[in-house]
Protein backbone atom coordinates (compact mmCIF):
# COMPACT_ATOMS: atom_id res chain seq x y z
CA UNK A 1 0.00 0.00 0.00
CA UNK A 2 0.98 3.62 -0.36
CA UNK A 3 2.08 5.35 2.82
CA UNK A 4 -0.85 7.45 4.03
CA UNK A 5 0.01 10.67 5.83
CA UNK A 6 -2.82 12.55 7.48
CA UNK A 7 -2.98 15.81 9.40
CA UNK A 8 -6.01 16.66 11.54
CA UNK A 9 -6.05 20.35 12.50
CA UNK A 10 -8.38 22.63 14.39
CA UNK A 11 -8.65 24.07 17.85
CA UNK A 12 -8.25 22.45 21.24
CA UNK A 13 -11.53 20.96 22.48
CA UNK A 14 -12.91 20.04 19.03
CA UNK A 15 -11.78 16.46 19.52
CA UNK A 16 -9.62 16.19 16.44
CA UNK A 17 -6.85 14.46 18.36
CA UNK A 18 -9.35 11.82 19.48
CA UNK A 19 -10.48 11.37 15.89
CA UNK A 20 -6.87 10.90 14.79
CA UNK A 21 -6.21 8.38 17.55
CA UNK A 22 -9.30 6.35 16.65
CA UNK A 23 -8.37 6.19 12.97
CA UNK A 24 -4.84 5.01 13.80
CA UNK A 25 -6.14 2.58 16.41
CA UNK A 26 -8.58 1.06 13.93
CA UNK A 27 -5.71 0.59 11.48
CA UNK A 28 -3.44 -1.10 14.05
CA UNK A 29 -5.83 -3.16 16.17
CA UNK A 30 -8.37 -4.13 13.53
CA UNK A 31 -6.59 -3.96 10.17
CA UNK A 32 -3.17 -5.26 11.19
CA UNK A 33 -1.41 -2.21 9.72
CA UNK A 34 1.26 -0.01 11.28
CA UNK A 35 0.31 3.45 12.45
CA UNK A 36 1.97 6.21 14.38
CA UNK A 37 -0.06 9.04 15.86
CA UNK A 38 1.45 12.16 17.36
CA UNK A 39 0.19 15.58 18.28
CA UNK A 40 1.37 19.08 18.86
CA UNK A 41 -0.36 21.64 20.95
CA UNK A 42 0.31 24.72 23.03
CA UNK A 43 0.27 24.91 26.80
CA UNK A 44 -3.47 25.69 27.01
CA UNK A 45 -6.07 22.89 27.11
CA UNK A 46 -8.82 24.60 25.11
CA UNK A 47 -8.91 27.19 22.38
CA UNK A 48 -5.30 26.93 21.26
CA UNK A 49 -4.32 25.47 17.91
CA UNK A 50 -4.37 21.68 17.91
CA UNK A 51 -2.88 19.33 15.37
CA UNK A 52 -2.48 15.60 15.17
CA UNK A 53 -0.41 13.66 12.66
CA UNK A 54 -1.17 10.10 11.65
CA UNK A 55 0.90 7.88 9.38
CA UNK A 56 -0.59 4.56 8.31
CA UNK A 57 1.44 2.06 6.35
CA UNK A 58 2.01 -1.68 5.99
CA UNK A 59 5.74 -1.17 6.69
CA UNK A 60 7.47 0.17 9.81
CA UNK A 61 7.06 3.91 10.40
CA UNK A 62 10.03 5.69 11.98
CA UNK A 63 9.83 9.49 11.63
CA UNK A 64 6.45 10.13 13.24
CA UNK A 65 5.62 13.60 11.92
CA UNK A 66 3.87 14.53 8.70
CA UNK A 67 5.57 17.16 6.58
CA UNK A 68 3.33 16.99 3.48
CA UNK A 69 -0.04 15.35 4.17
CA UNK A 70 -1.93 13.30 1.58
CA UNK A 71 -5.01 14.07 3.62
CA UNK A 72 -5.42 17.38 5.42
CA UNK A 73 -8.40 18.01 7.68
CA UNK A 74 -8.97 21.64 8.75
CA UNK A 75 -11.71 22.53 11.19
CA UNK A 76 -10.82 26.17 11.82
CA UNK A 77 -9.93 29.06 9.54
CA UNK A 78 -6.64 29.48 11.42
CA UNK A 79 -5.72 25.85 10.83
CA UNK A 80 -6.63 26.13 7.15
CA UNK A 81 -4.60 29.31 6.68
CA UNK A 82 -1.63 27.74 8.42
CA UNK A 83 -1.57 24.27 6.91
CA UNK A 84 -3.14 24.44 3.43
CA UNK A 85 0.21 25.18 1.73
CA UNK A 86 1.65 21.92 3.08
CA UNK A 87 -0.72 19.58 1.29
CA UNK A 88 0.85 17.10 -1.10
CA UNK A 89 -0.06 17.77 -4.75
CA UNK A 90 -2.96 15.48 -5.63
CA UNK A 91 -3.85 15.16 -1.95
CA UNK A 92 -7.22 15.58 -0.30
CA UNK A 93 -8.31 18.64 1.67
CA UNK A 94 -11.30 18.15 3.97
CA UNK A 95 -12.93 21.19 5.56
CA UNK A 96 -16.18 22.13 7.26
CA UNK A 97 -18.37 24.49 5.26
CA UNK A 98 -19.46 26.45 8.32
CA UNK A 99 -16.02 26.77 9.92
CA UNK A 100 -13.63 27.30 7.01
CA UNK A 101 -13.80 29.55 3.99
CA UNK A 102 -11.63 27.98 1.32
CA UNK A 103 -10.19 30.95 -0.49
CA UNK A 104 -6.86 29.77 -1.77
CA UNK A 105 -6.10 27.50 -4.67
CA UNK A 106 -4.37 24.21 -4.05
CA UNK A 107 -3.42 21.32 -6.26
CA UNK A 108 -5.59 19.04 -4.23
CA UNK A 109 -9.01 17.49 -4.29
CA UNK A 110 -11.39 19.39 -2.09
CA UNK A 111 -14.14 18.03 0.13
CA UNK A 112 -16.05 20.86 1.79
CA UNK A 113 -18.63 19.12 3.93
CA UNK A 114 -21.33 20.40 6.28
CA UNK A 115 -20.20 18.41 9.33
CA UNK A 116 -21.09 20.96 11.95
CA UNK A 117 -24.49 21.92 10.50
CA UNK A 118 -25.56 18.35 10.11
CA UNK A 119 -24.34 17.19 13.53
CA UNK A 120 -26.07 20.15 15.18
CA UNK A 121 -29.28 19.54 13.25
CA UNK A 122 -29.48 15.81 13.95
CA UNK A 123 -27.99 15.64 17.43
CA UNK A 124 -28.80 19.01 18.95
CA UNK A 125 -25.17 19.87 19.76
CA UNK A 126 -21.78 19.72 18.09
CA UNK A 127 -20.07 17.25 20.40
CA UNK A 128 -20.09 14.51 17.77
CA UNK A 129 -18.32 16.73 15.23
CA UNK A 130 -14.96 14.97 15.50
CA UNK A 131 -16.42 11.48 15.07
CA UNK A 132 -18.51 12.65 12.12
CA UNK A 133 -15.32 13.97 10.50
CA UNK A 134 -13.60 10.65 11.25
CA UNK A 135 -16.35 8.80 9.37
CA UNK A 136 -15.94 11.06 6.34
CA UNK A 137 -12.14 10.71 6.34
CA UNK A 138 -12.50 6.92 6.32
CA UNK A 139 -15.14 6.94 3.57
CA UNK A 140 -13.10 9.30 1.38
CA UNK A 141 -9.78 7.52 1.83
CA UNK A 142 -10.82 3.87 2.30
CA UNK A 143 -7.85 3.32 4.63
CA UNK A 144 -9.87 1.42 7.21
CA UNK A 145 -13.13 -0.48 6.95
CA UNK A 146 -16.38 0.59 8.59
CA UNK A 147 -16.46 -2.38 11.02
CA UNK A 148 -12.91 -1.55 12.17
CA UNK A 149 -13.91 2.04 12.83
CA UNK A 150 -17.09 0.97 14.61
CA UNK A 151 -15.04 -1.24 16.93
CA UNK A 152 -12.57 1.56 17.65
CA UNK A 153 -15.33 4.11 18.34
CA UNK A 154 -17.44 1.70 20.41
CA UNK A 155 -14.40 0.72 22.46
CA UNK A 156 -13.51 4.32 23.17
CA UNK A 157 -16.72 5.66 24.67
CA UNK A 158 -18.68 4.87 27.76
CA UNK A 159 -21.99 3.11 27.15
CA UNK A 160 -23.93 6.35 27.68
CA UNK A 161 -22.22 8.01 24.71
CA UNK A 162 -21.61 5.00 22.49
CA UNK A 163 -24.86 5.16 20.53
CA UNK A 164 -24.53 8.89 19.80
CA UNK A 165 -20.95 8.54 18.62
CA UNK A 166 -21.75 5.60 16.35
CA UNK A 167 -24.57 7.71 14.90
CA UNK A 168 -22.13 10.57 14.28
CA UNK A 169 -19.71 8.13 12.68
CA UNK A 170 -22.31 6.89 10.23
CA UNK A 171 -23.39 10.42 9.45
CA UNK A 172 -19.81 11.15 8.51
CA UNK A 173 -19.46 7.98 6.46
CA UNK A 174 -22.61 8.97 4.53
CA UNK A 175 -21.33 12.52 3.96
CA UNK A 176 -17.98 11.20 2.76
CA UNK A 177 -19.50 8.54 0.51
CA UNK A 178 -21.78 11.08 -1.19
CA UNK A 179 -18.79 13.31 -1.76
CA UNK A 180 -16.55 10.58 -3.10
CA UNK A 181 -19.20 9.31 -5.54
CA UNK A 182 -19.59 12.85 -6.84
CA UNK A 183 -16.67 14.03 -8.97
CA UNK A 184 -13.87 15.40 -6.85
Amino acid at each position, binding site marked *: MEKCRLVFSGSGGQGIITAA*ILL*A*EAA*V*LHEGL*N*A*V*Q*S*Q*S*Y*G*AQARGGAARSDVIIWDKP*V*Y*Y*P*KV*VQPNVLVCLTQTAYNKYHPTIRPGGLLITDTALVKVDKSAEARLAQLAFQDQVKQEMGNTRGLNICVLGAVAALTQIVSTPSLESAVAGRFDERFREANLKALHMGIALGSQRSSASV
Partner: protein
Amino acid sequence: MQGKVKFIQGNEVCVEAALYAGLEFFAGYPITPSTEIAEAMSARLPQIGGRFLQMEDEISSICAIIGASLTGRKAMTATSGPGFSLMQEALGYAVMTEIPCVIVDVQRGGPSTGLPTHVGQGDVNQARYGTHGDHAIVALTASNHQDMFAITVEAFNIAETFRTPVILLFDEVTGHMREKVVIPEKGEISLVERLRTSVESGVDYHPYLPREDGRLPMSDFGGVHRYNVTGLYHDMWGFPSDDPKIVYGLIRHLMDKIQNYTGNMTFFRQDHIEDAHTVLVSYGAAARSARHLVENRRKRGERLGLLELQTLWPFPGDVVRKVCKNADYIVVVELNTGQVIREVKLAVDRPERVYLANRIDGQLISPTDIQNILRLLHGKGV
Protein backbone atom coordinates in the same frame (compact mmCIF):
# COMPACT_ATOMS: atom_id res chain seq x y z
CA MET B 1 5.85 -12.99 20.92
CA GLN B 2 2.19 -13.71 21.49
CA GLY B 3 1.16 -11.08 24.03
CA LYS B 4 -1.57 -8.52 23.92
CA VAL B 5 -1.41 -5.87 21.18
CA LYS B 6 -2.07 -2.33 22.32
CA PHE B 7 -2.08 1.05 20.60
CA ILE B 8 -1.04 3.42 23.37
CA GLN B 9 1.21 6.36 24.24
CA GLY B 10 4.83 5.79 25.15
CA ASN B 11 4.09 7.04 28.65
CA GLU B 12 1.47 4.31 29.01
CA VAL B 13 3.96 1.74 27.71
CA CYS B 14 6.32 2.80 30.48
CA VAL B 15 3.53 2.21 33.02
CA GLU B 16 2.66 -1.24 31.67
CA ALA B 17 6.33 -2.20 31.63
CA ALA B 18 6.88 -1.01 35.20
CA LEU B 19 3.93 -3.09 36.39
CA TYR B 20 5.26 -6.07 34.41
CA ALA B 21 8.58 -5.60 36.24
CA GLY B 22 6.79 -5.81 39.59
CA LEU B 23 6.28 -2.14 40.49
CA GLU B 24 4.18 -1.75 43.62
CA PHE B 25 4.66 1.91 44.52
CA PHE B 26 4.59 5.16 42.57
CA ALA B 27 4.83 8.66 43.98
CA GLY B 28 4.87 11.67 41.72
CA TYR B 29 3.95 15.23 40.92
CA PRO B 30 2.44 15.29 37.42
CA ILE B 31 4.21 17.46 34.87
CA THR B 32 3.96 17.73 31.09
CA PRO B 33 5.02 15.73 29.13
CA SER B 34 5.18 12.93 31.72
CA THR B 35 1.67 13.45 33.16
CA GLU B 36 0.14 10.35 31.56
CA ILE B 37 2.53 8.18 33.57
CA ALA B 38 1.11 9.47 36.87
CA GLU B 39 -2.41 9.39 35.44
CA ALA B 40 -2.18 5.77 34.32
CA MET B 41 -0.42 4.72 37.52
CA SER B 42 -3.24 6.21 39.60
CA ALA B 43 -5.66 3.95 37.75
CA ARG B 44 -3.52 0.82 37.39
CA LEU B 45 -1.72 0.48 40.73
CA PRO B 46 -4.83 0.23 42.95
CA GLN B 47 -6.10 -2.54 40.64
CA ILE B 48 -3.17 -4.75 41.58
CA GLY B 49 -2.98 -3.82 45.25
CA GLY B 50 -0.19 -1.29 44.77
CA ARG B 51 -0.04 2.26 46.03
CA PHE B 52 -0.16 5.54 44.12
CA LEU B 53 0.65 8.76 45.91
CA GLN B 54 0.35 12.23 44.42
CA MET B 55 2.90 14.28 46.31
CA GLU B 56 3.21 18.02 46.91
CA ASP B 57 6.33 18.31 44.76
CA GLU B 58 9.13 16.40 43.11
CA ILE B 59 11.42 16.48 46.15
CA SER B 60 8.92 14.58 48.25
CA SER B 61 8.13 12.31 45.28
CA ILE B 62 11.64 10.94 44.99
CA CYS B 63 12.01 10.76 48.77
CA ALA B 64 8.79 8.73 48.95
CA ILE B 65 9.97 6.18 46.40
CA ILE B 66 13.34 5.83 48.12
CA GLY B 67 11.52 5.13 51.38
CA ALA B 68 9.11 2.70 49.74
CA SER B 69 11.96 0.84 48.09
CA LEU B 70 13.82 0.52 51.38
CA THR B 71 10.79 -1.26 52.81
CA GLY B 72 11.09 -3.83 50.04
CA ARG B 73 8.82 -2.59 47.24
CA LYS B 74 9.82 -1.84 43.66
CA ALA B 75 9.23 1.89 43.29
CA MET B 76 9.29 4.55 40.60
CA THR B 77 8.60 8.23 39.98
CA ALA B 78 8.21 10.18 36.75
CA THR B 79 8.84 13.81 35.90
CA SER B 80 10.25 16.20 33.32
CA GLY B 81 13.18 18.65 33.36
CA PRO B 82 12.01 21.11 36.05
CA GLY B 83 11.04 18.27 38.39
CA PHE B 84 14.20 16.33 37.56
CA SER B 85 16.21 19.34 38.76
CA LEU B 86 14.40 19.21 42.10
CA MET B 87 15.12 15.49 42.41
CA GLN B 88 18.89 15.80 42.08
CA GLU B 89 19.69 16.00 45.79
CA ALA B 90 17.69 12.91 46.71
CA LEU B 91 19.02 11.11 43.64
CA GLY B 92 22.44 11.42 45.23
CA TYR B 93 21.00 10.09 48.49
CA ALA B 94 19.75 6.98 46.65
CA VAL B 95 23.21 6.57 45.08
CA MET B 96 24.95 6.90 48.45
CA THR B 97 22.55 4.68 50.40
CA GLU B 98 22.35 2.20 47.50
CA ILE B 99 18.58 2.05 47.39
CA PRO B 100 17.17 0.69 44.12
CA CYS B 101 14.63 2.92 42.36
CA VAL B 102 13.64 4.09 38.89
CA ILE B 103 13.28 7.75 37.91
CA VAL B 104 11.66 8.58 34.58
CA ASP B 105 12.47 11.92 32.95
CA VAL B 106 10.28 12.55 29.91
CA GLN B 107 12.38 15.35 28.46
CA ARG B 108 10.96 18.62 27.18
CA GLY B 109 12.68 21.78 26.02
CA GLY B 110 14.73 23.48 28.71
CA PRO B 111 16.30 25.17 30.64
CA SER B 112 13.85 26.12 33.40
CA THR B 113 10.17 25.61 32.59
CA GLY B 114 11.26 25.95 28.95
CA LEU B 115 8.91 24.33 26.46
CA PRO B 116 6.37 22.17 28.33
CA THR B 117 4.73 20.62 25.28
CA HIS B 118 7.72 20.32 22.96
CA VAL B 119 10.58 17.90 22.65
CA GLY B 120 14.18 18.22 23.80
CA GLN B 121 17.06 15.97 24.83
CA GLY B 122 18.86 18.48 27.00
CA ASP B 123 18.90 16.45 30.23
CA VAL B 124 21.50 13.88 29.19
CA ASN B 125 24.30 15.56 31.09
CA GLN B 126 22.03 16.40 34.00
CA ALA B 127 21.28 12.71 34.37
CA ARG B 128 25.02 12.04 34.58
CA TYR B 129 26.28 15.00 36.55
CA GLY B 130 23.18 16.62 38.12
CA THR B 131 23.69 15.41 41.66
CA HIS B 132 26.78 16.62 43.47
CA GLY B 133 29.88 14.66 44.34
CA ASP B 134 31.63 11.88 42.45
CA HIS B 135 29.23 9.12 41.57
CA ALA B 136 28.31 6.67 38.84
CA ILE B 137 24.83 6.57 37.34
CA VAL B 138 22.76 4.45 34.96
CA ALA B 139 20.57 6.16 32.34
CA LEU B 140 18.69 4.30 29.62
CA THR B 141 16.51 5.40 26.73
CA ALA B 142 14.56 4.03 23.74
CA SER B 143 13.06 5.25 20.47
CA ASN B 144 10.05 2.98 19.98
CA HIS B 145 7.37 1.45 22.14
CA GLN B 146 8.56 -2.14 22.04
CA ASP B 147 12.06 -1.10 23.11
CA MET B 148 10.61 1.28 25.67
CA PHE B 149 8.83 -1.65 27.27
CA ALA B 150 11.94 -3.81 27.37
CA ILE B 151 14.24 -1.04 28.58
CA THR B 152 11.84 -0.05 31.37
CA VAL B 153 11.82 -3.63 32.65
CA GLU B 154 15.61 -3.64 32.33
CA ALA B 155 15.81 -0.45 34.43
CA PHE B 156 14.17 -2.27 37.32
CA ASN B 157 16.45 -5.29 36.83
CA ILE B 158 19.57 -3.13 36.91
CA ALA B 159 18.30 -1.15 39.91
CA GLU B 160 17.82 -4.36 41.90
CA THR B 161 21.00 -6.11 40.70
CA PHE B 162 23.31 -3.20 41.41
CA ARG B 163 21.35 -1.46 44.17
CA THR B 164 21.30 1.81 42.31
CA PRO B 165 18.86 4.42 41.07
CA VAL B 166 18.29 4.05 37.31
CA ILE B 167 17.15 6.95 35.15
CA LEU B 168 14.90 6.45 32.14
CA LEU B 169 15.51 9.38 29.79
CA PHE B 170 12.55 9.45 27.47
CA ASP B 171 11.30 12.50 25.57
CA GLU B 172 8.09 14.29 24.61
CA VAL B 173 7.89 12.65 21.19
CA THR B 174 8.25 9.04 22.33
CA GLY B 175 6.24 9.71 25.49
CA HIS B 176 3.21 11.19 23.75
CA MET B 177 3.35 9.29 20.48
CA ARG B 178 1.06 6.34 19.97
CA GLU B 179 2.11 3.19 18.13
CA LYS B 180 1.72 -0.53 18.41
CA VAL B 181 3.20 -2.40 21.32
CA VAL B 182 2.91 -6.09 22.14
CA ILE B 183 2.78 -6.60 25.89
CA PRO B 184 4.93 -9.69 26.47
CA GLU B 185 3.56 -12.72 28.26
CA LYS B 186 4.59 -13.21 31.85
CA GLY B 187 8.04 -14.81 31.92
CA GLU B 188 8.98 -13.67 28.43
CA ILE B 189 11.33 -11.05 29.88
CA SER B 190 13.15 -12.28 32.97
CA LEU B 191 12.84 -10.22 36.13
CA VAL B 192 15.41 -9.62 38.83
CA GLU B 193 13.98 -9.78 42.32
CA ARG B 194 15.57 -8.17 45.32
CA LEU B 195 18.44 -9.95 47.02
CA ARG B 196 17.33 -10.19 50.64
CA THR B 197 19.48 -11.10 53.61
CA SER B 198 19.40 -14.58 55.02
CA VAL B 199 20.28 -13.18 58.46
CA GLU B 200 17.47 -14.12 60.77
CA SER B 201 15.50 -12.04 63.21
CA GLY B 202 17.40 -11.42 66.45
CA VAL B 203 20.79 -11.73 64.72
CA ASP B 204 22.78 -8.59 63.88
CA TYR B 205 22.33 -7.54 60.25
CA HIS B 206 25.05 -5.43 58.63
CA PRO B 207 23.34 -3.46 55.86
CA TYR B 208 26.59 -2.53 54.12
CA LEU B 209 28.63 -5.69 54.60
CA PRO B 210 29.17 -7.21 51.14
CA ARG B 211 28.86 -10.93 50.48
CA GLU B 212 31.77 -12.74 48.87
CA ASP B 213 30.48 -11.77 45.41
CA GLY B 214 30.41 -8.09 46.43
CA ARG B 215 26.62 -7.81 46.55
CA LEU B 216 24.80 -6.30 49.52
CA PRO B 217 21.68 -8.25 50.59
CA MET B 218 18.91 -5.99 51.83
CA SER B 219 16.51 -6.26 54.75
CA ASP B 220 13.07 -4.70 54.38
CA PHE B 221 13.20 -1.56 56.51
CA GLY B 222 10.66 -1.70 59.31
CA GLY B 223 10.87 -5.49 59.28
CA VAL B 224 12.87 -7.71 61.60
CA HIS B 225 16.19 -5.82 61.62
CA ARG B 226 17.03 -2.41 63.04
CA TYR B 227 19.69 -0.59 61.09
CA ASN B 228 20.84 2.89 60.15
CA VAL B 229 20.69 4.53 56.72
CA THR B 230 22.49 7.82 56.03
CA GLY B 231 23.71 9.97 53.18
CA LEU B 232 26.94 10.47 55.13
CA TYR B 233 29.88 8.20 54.42
CA HIS B 234 29.09 5.12 56.46
CA ASP B 235 30.51 1.86 57.75
CA MET B 236 29.10 -1.65 57.38
CA TRP B 237 26.52 -0.95 60.09
CA GLY B 238 25.31 2.10 58.19
CA PHE B 239 26.65 4.52 60.81
CA PRO B 240 28.51 7.71 59.83
CA SER B 241 32.26 7.46 59.48
CA ASP B 242 35.04 9.72 58.24
CA ASP B 243 37.72 7.06 58.55
CA PRO B 244 39.74 7.61 55.33
CA LYS B 245 39.85 3.88 54.65
CA ILE B 246 36.07 3.58 54.88
CA VAL B 247 35.52 6.74 52.85
CA TYR B 248 37.89 5.54 50.13
CA GLY B 249 36.37 2.07 50.12
CA LEU B 250 32.82 3.38 49.76
CA ILE B 251 33.42 5.87 46.94
CA ARG B 252 35.46 3.25 45.05
CA HIS B 253 32.66 0.74 45.55
CA LEU B 254 30.00 3.20 44.32
CA MET B 255 32.00 3.93 41.16
CA ASP B 256 33.25 0.40 40.48
CA LYS B 257 29.94 -1.39 40.91
CA ILE B 258 28.67 0.48 37.84
CA GLN B 259 31.82 1.12 35.80
CA ASN B 260 33.16 -2.43 36.10
CA TYR B 261 29.84 -3.80 34.86
CA THR B 262 29.25 -1.43 31.94
CA GLY B 263 28.97 -4.47 29.66
CA ASN B 264 26.03 -5.82 31.70
CA MET B 265 24.05 -2.65 31.14
CA THR B 266 24.97 -1.69 27.58
CA PHE B 267 22.03 -1.76 25.18
CA PHE B 268 22.12 -0.53 21.60
CA ARG B 269 20.94 -1.28 18.06
CA GLN B 270 23.05 -1.17 14.94
CA ASP B 271 21.72 -1.08 11.38
CA HIS B 272 23.74 -1.36 8.13
CA ILE B 273 27.07 -0.75 9.85
CA GLU B 274 29.30 -3.23 7.92
CA ASP B 275 30.07 -1.10 4.86
CA ALA B 276 28.86 2.29 6.12
CA HIS B 277 31.09 5.24 5.28
CA THR B 278 28.81 7.51 7.33
CA VAL B 279 27.54 6.32 10.71
CA LEU B 280 24.73 8.20 12.45
CA VAL B 281 24.85 7.90 16.24
CA SER B 282 21.52 8.74 17.83
CA TYR B 283 19.05 7.89 20.59
CA GLY B 284 15.44 8.43 21.65
CA ALA B 285 13.11 10.34 19.31
CA ALA B 286 16.02 11.63 17.20
CA ALA B 287 16.95 8.04 16.36
CA ARG B 288 13.57 7.58 14.64
CA SER B 289 14.48 10.32 12.15
CA ALA B 290 17.98 8.91 11.75
CA ARG B 291 16.61 5.41 11.07
CA HIS B 292 14.05 6.80 8.59
CA LEU B 293 16.86 8.46 6.66
CA VAL B 294 19.20 5.45 6.77
CA GLU B 295 16.49 3.07 5.49
CA ASN B 296 15.52 5.46 2.68
CA ARG B 297 19.05 6.26 1.52
CA ARG B 298 20.13 2.61 1.66
CA LYS B 299 17.51 1.90 -1.03
CA ARG B 300 19.47 4.32 -3.21
CA GLY B 301 22.72 2.59 -2.44
CA GLU B 302 24.14 5.18 -0.06
CA ARG B 303 26.46 3.64 2.50
CA LEU B 304 24.77 4.99 5.59
CA GLY B 305 24.56 3.18 8.94
CA LEU B 306 22.96 3.78 12.31
CA LEU B 307 24.12 3.17 15.85
CA GLU B 308 21.19 3.72 18.19
CA LEU B 309 22.24 4.00 21.83
CA GLN B 310 19.82 2.77 24.47
CA THR B 311 22.33 3.06 27.28
CA LEU B 312 23.57 6.64 27.67
CA TRP B 313 25.22 6.20 31.07
CA PRO B 314 27.58 4.54 31.78
CA PHE B 315 28.55 5.68 28.30
CA PRO B 316 29.25 2.65 26.07
CA GLY B 317 32.47 4.08 24.67
CA ASP B 318 33.86 0.68 23.59
CA VAL B 319 30.80 -0.06 21.46
CA VAL B 320 30.90 3.39 19.86
CA ARG B 321 34.62 3.04 19.08
CA LYS B 322 34.17 -0.39 17.48
CA VAL B 323 31.08 0.45 15.47
CA CYS B 324 32.53 3.72 14.16
CA LYS B 325 35.98 2.29 13.44
CA ASN B 326 35.78 2.35 9.64
CA ALA B 327 33.48 5.33 9.14
CA ASP B 328 34.69 8.43 7.30
CA TYR B 329 31.97 10.50 8.93
CA ILE B 330 30.37 10.03 12.34
CA VAL B 331 27.30 12.20 12.78
CA VAL B 332 25.68 12.46 16.20
CA VAL B 333 21.97 13.24 15.88
CA GLU B 334 20.48 14.72 19.05
CA LEU B 335 18.05 17.41 20.23
CA ASN B 336 20.46 19.61 22.20
CA THR B 337 23.53 21.73 21.58
CA GLY B 338 25.78 18.67 21.74
CA GLN B 339 25.84 16.42 24.81
CA VAL B 340 26.36 12.85 23.61
CA ILE B 341 28.70 14.13 20.90
CA ARG B 342 31.28 14.96 23.60
CA GLU B 343 31.31 11.34 24.72
CA VAL B 344 31.49 10.10 21.14
CA LYS B 345 34.50 12.32 20.46
CA LEU B 346 36.20 10.96 23.57
CA ALA B 347 35.42 7.38 22.57
CA VAL B 348 36.52 7.21 18.93
CA ASP B 349 39.91 7.31 17.29
CA ARG B 350 40.34 10.37 15.05
CA PRO B 351 37.60 12.50 16.68
CA GLU B 352 37.88 15.01 13.83
CA ARG B 353 35.46 12.69 11.98
CA VAL B 354 32.67 13.49 14.45
CA TYR B 355 29.95 16.02 13.53
CA LEU B 356 26.71 17.21 15.10
CA ALA B 357 23.25 17.15 13.50
CA ASN B 358 20.82 18.77 15.89
CA ARG B 359 17.72 20.85 16.40
CA ILE B 360 17.20 23.03 19.46
CA ASP B 361 13.94 24.78 18.58
CA GLY B 362 11.50 22.40 20.26
CA GLN B 363 10.93 20.48 17.03
CA LEU B 364 11.94 16.91 16.25
CA ILE B 365 14.80 16.91 13.76
CA SER B 366 13.50 15.56 10.45
CA PRO B 367 15.15 13.11 8.06
CA THR B 368 15.44 16.02 5.59
CA ASP B 369 17.27 18.13 8.20
CA ILE B 370 19.80 15.33 8.68
CA GLN B 371 20.10 14.75 4.94
CA ASN B 372 20.87 18.43 4.36
CA ILE B 373 23.65 18.31 6.94
CA LEU B 374 25.05 15.13 5.33
CA ARG B 375 25.07 16.79 1.92
CA LEU B 376 27.12 19.65 3.29
CA LEU B 377 29.53 17.25 5.00
CA HIS B 378 29.92 15.20 1.85
CA GLY B 379 30.67 18.37 -0.12
CA LYS B 380 27.48 18.25 -2.16
CA GLY B 381 25.95 21.54 -1.03
CA VAL B 382 22.29 21.88 -0.13
